[in-house]
């Protein structure tokens, strides 16, 4: 039961942290809550579909369909998170100032909401499909102990969701002055971490050279299956044995999104918006 709880927790944690951070970052965007729920539900549906079609997906691209799907989904998520951060750095201040007034930048807000929908949907879809498969495997196996394993699954799921809620509640307590810095830094790190993971899948599929494999090995000091390692993996894509190419992707995403945010926050761009 304990083992099951940990496996499910690990899968749910990543999606839940992303949803928590994004929910906090968009709390003042009109209509964001509805889009968030819609994203969650579509993600769950998508996860079920991926689980059902695992065999089909796995056989695509001569057995490398899974890696290509994962890398593409992660690539889209990086673009969405990057766009979100750049959008927020020009609109965030305005939204916070008019937090109570309805109809602030509704049109732009709607665009931000569809991005929010995509990010949440993708996060749930990616992490959810493995959980569905795992729980299906338990349910289908003939050995006993399903009830206790299912209970473990539920415990893992609720602990993972609770962690996401904790980061959400924690972010809401951050003073307004630091709120945008805090959320945009977290989103930036999420995006860079995902870029590194996308590179990891492309290396695993042999579509990208690894450069140095591994570049370092910190598994003794900070194992990836320990709780701190797991959290860092979800937040910044921490890898105890990364390939050099993963770091290249991490750095590139970090640089491009930071430059985009600086550009969007520049006085001329902000003046154009208002």
């Amino acid at each position, binding site marked *: 039961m304990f*083992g099951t709880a940990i*496996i499910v927790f690990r899968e749910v944690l990543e999606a839940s942290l992303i949803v928590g951070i994004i929910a906090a970052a968009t709390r003042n965007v009109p209509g964001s809550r509805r889009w968030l729920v819609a994203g969650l539900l579509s993600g769950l549906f998508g996860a079920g579909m991926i689980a059902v079609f*695992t*065999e089909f997906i*796995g*056989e695509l691209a*001569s*057995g*490398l369909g*899974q*890696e290509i799907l994962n890398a593409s989904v992660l690539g889209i998520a990086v673009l969405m998170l990057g766009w979100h951060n750049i959008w927020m750095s020009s609109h965030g201040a305005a939204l916070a100032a008019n937090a109570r007034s309805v109809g602030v930048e509704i049109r732009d807000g709607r665009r931000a909401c569809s991005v929010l929908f995509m990010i949440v949907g993708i996060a749930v879809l990616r992490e959810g499909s*493995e959980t569905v*498969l*795992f729980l*299906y*495997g*338990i349910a*289908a*196996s003939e050995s006993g102990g399903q009830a206790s394993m299912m209970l473990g699954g539920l415990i893992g799921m609720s602990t993972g969701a609770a962690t996401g809620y904790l980061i959400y509640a924690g972010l809401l307590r951050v003073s307004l002055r630091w709120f945008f810095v805090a959320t945009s830094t977290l989103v930036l790190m999420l995006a860079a971490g995902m870029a590194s993971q996308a590179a*990891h899948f492309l*290396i*695993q*599929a*042999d*579509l*990208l*050279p*690894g*450069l140095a*494999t*591994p570049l370092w090995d910190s*598994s003794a000091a900070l*194992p*990836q*299956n320990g709780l701190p390692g797991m959290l860092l993996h979800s937040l910044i894509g921490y*890898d*105890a*044995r*990364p*390939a050099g190419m993963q770091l290249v992707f991490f750095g590139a995403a970090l640089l491009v999104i930071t430059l985009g945010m600086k550009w969007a926050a520049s006085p001329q761009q902000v003046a154009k918006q208002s």
Partner: protein
Amino acid sequence: MKNILLITLLFPFAALAVDADYTLMIKDHRFSPSELTVPSGKKIKLLIVNQDSTPEEFDSHALNREKVIAGNGSAILYIGPLNSGSYKFGGEFHEATAQGTLIVR
């Protein structure tokens, strides 16, 4: 595809590594062979065949690899090039029985 070829050309050492073929079977939530020996310093192309009806996730922190294999399905996994040593792997969905070691010489 063109870009990938270009990238590969830029790193001749990565492109030079010769692929080797190895097969790993999963049956009754166990790997066979449970110990697989492969050469060091080479990129390894590993075929994993799952003969169980339930899905399994090949998982190895040591190898930094993770991949779901559908029930009665198979998958290709690229590993390495690796240094000599032994690397543990397992089936995340059935950790109690699905355990194995990759010996790199």
